[in-house]
């Protein structure tokens, strides 16, 4: 598979996982959130981590990105223990977008995206012509070229998220980790951002993200990692993973899983307690 890289250099995906957690245990203080978890991120596809609140989704993503240091086990990036790598070298391989980042008031879009070049710069080399070119390409790829001289805080939530993704792209990595990229966005903007994420995947990047919305996760991912209480409950293609039984087990959610009328993926229809006309039928179906 040929990766169209933003820096112009092309790399060959080798089909093997570039990022994996091996028996990681992670916790805050004495409390461990994840205990002995194994997961391998398949290359070139979108992997989405889902699970109920507090199951350790974000903790796993933060561990994979080296924001959190596991107390046990290792995270392996390109065959090396990520903890042994220099922070800067990790940043050249792996782009990370944390949940709800905040830019200083008045900062322009192009200055924010330009900061994505940081891992490639040095004290003396703060703004090469390559940097300018890569930033232009990142702006274009996320469709925010026209907003380049606007302050980030004057944009709508969806535009702002595109700009942050653009910054991560300017980093020039083909591995992107996005922590809830659709937080605070209405459905239309969430779909818009996820379409962009899919574009990035189409251009050969490996994406790992955390999402709350099950149907968006199902629609946009090729690989789902379902977590519960710090462990992986199931992993695989949404078609194989999303079942009524799994939803009950993972989320305690009563739901029907039907065929998505506009796609080739399953669709989750939550049942809940009220306004259900076919309650008996739904129960039978379960």
């Amino acid at each position: 598979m040929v990766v169209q890289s933003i820096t112009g250099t092309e790399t060959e995906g080798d089909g093997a996982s570039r990022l994996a957690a091996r028996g990681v245990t992670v916790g805050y203080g004495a409390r461990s959130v994840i205990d002995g978890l194994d997961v391998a991120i398949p290359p070139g596809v979108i992997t989405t981590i889902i699970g109920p609140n507090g199951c350790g989704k974000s903790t796993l993503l933060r561990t994979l990105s080296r924001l959190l240091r596991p107390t046990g086990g290792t995270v392996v990036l390109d065959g090396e223990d990520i903890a042994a790598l220099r922070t800067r070298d990790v940043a050249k391989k792996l782009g990370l977008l944390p949940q709800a980042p905040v830019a200083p008031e008045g900062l322009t879009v192009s200055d924010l995206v330009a900061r994505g070049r940081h891992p490639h710069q040095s004290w003396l080399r703060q703004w090469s012509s390559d940097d300018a070119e890569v930033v232009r390409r990142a702006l274009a790829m996320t469709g925010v070229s026209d907003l380049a001289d606007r302050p980030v805080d004057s944009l709508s939530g969806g535009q702002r998220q595109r700009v942050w993704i653009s910054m991560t792209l300017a980093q020039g990595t083909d591995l992107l980790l996005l922590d809830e990229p659709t937080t605070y966005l209405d459905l239309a903007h969430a779909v818009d951002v996820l379409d962009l994420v899919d574009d990035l995947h189409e251009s050969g990047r490996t994406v790992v993200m955390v999402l709350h919305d099950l149907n968006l996760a199902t629609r946009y991912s090729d690989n789902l990692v379902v977590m519960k209480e710090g462990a992986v409950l199931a992993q695989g293609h949404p078609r194989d993973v999303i079942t009524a039984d799994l939803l009950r087990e993972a989320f305690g959610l009563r739901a029907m899983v039907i065929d998505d009328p506009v796609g080739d993926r399953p669709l989750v229809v939550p049942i809940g307690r009220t306004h259900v006309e076919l309650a008996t039928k739904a129960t039978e179906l379960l």
Partner: protein
Amino acid sequence: MNGADVTANGAGRAVEAKADPRAPVAPGVRFGGVSFVWRPRIAGVTLLLAVAGFLVFCVSIGVGDFPIALPRVLATILGRGEQVDEFVIMDLRMPRALAGLVVGVALGVSGALTQSIARNPLASPDVLGITSGADAVAVFLVTVSGGAATAVTDLVGLSAAALAGGLGTGLLVYFMAWRRGIDGFRLILIGISVNAVMQAITTWLLVTADIRDVARAQAWLVGSLDNRSWGEVHVALWCTLVLLVVVACVAFQFKPLHFGDEVAAGLGVRYGAVRAVLLLCAVLLAGVAVSAAGPVPFVALVAPQVAMRLARCPTPPLVASGLVGALLLTGSDLVARTALPVSLPVGVVTAAVGGPFLVYLLVRANRR
């Protein structure tokens, strides 16, 4: 419909998007392997501030019981003055003027660093307990006579002891605010609390002390540039220069920290180490300023905010903040000595000038 919708539906697959050559990214200055972003506004404002600071510095030197005209001041500074001027300027007035510049730069840069680190304009060294800690120690040494206090004062001097007090308090605030990293709000809240305790101690000492000691303590408590000697100025100058070099070296790694720890980590910055070094530099700079001029209020809070608004930067620009600090302090000292019938300590004027100016900038920004 907003821009995001348009791009989603209209621009097609972003994969095919080519770099838009018209996208306004910052221009660069490049020669050989060295390259920088070129920001004309910041460069211009910085240059203007430097020129203005130097002029006020020269005027300030010329003003006094023996007035010296500006051209003669300039000639003397360049080493081609008359002997009388040379004595008055180099021996009598230069230490005071230079102390003003150094203290102003130190406070301005210190404020820019603390405000950037806490990502909050309220986080000046004053708020973080450095000044109040120095005050408390100084007042303690002045008012509690005899025994260990006098021994300490005799041994290291009041300024050095106050500096140690300020640094100790600053570090105390830092470590108490530490909880898996530094959170701006927590830092400020703890700083304000520690400040309150230190001020309470100072007040208690003043109330219970002998009235003559109180007068001496009061002289310390209002920052002043009176009676600076070359010795004191040399120490402050070299300490400040060394600290500024350290800040300059680390400043590049600091840029991503304006976006928060996690984004900075994602961009390959060891944020804990970078922040610790810079916060230590900020505390030391403020400490040097306090030991050289006493607690000069408001400069560290106002200078970075003024510099930001003049240069139209989203974050406090370090060099411009230092220059605004120097201009503010030197100008205030000039006003304190000339504009009023009684010569006032510089600290009174910095508060009186700095406060309203910041309010003016904020009001103007709101109207726009």
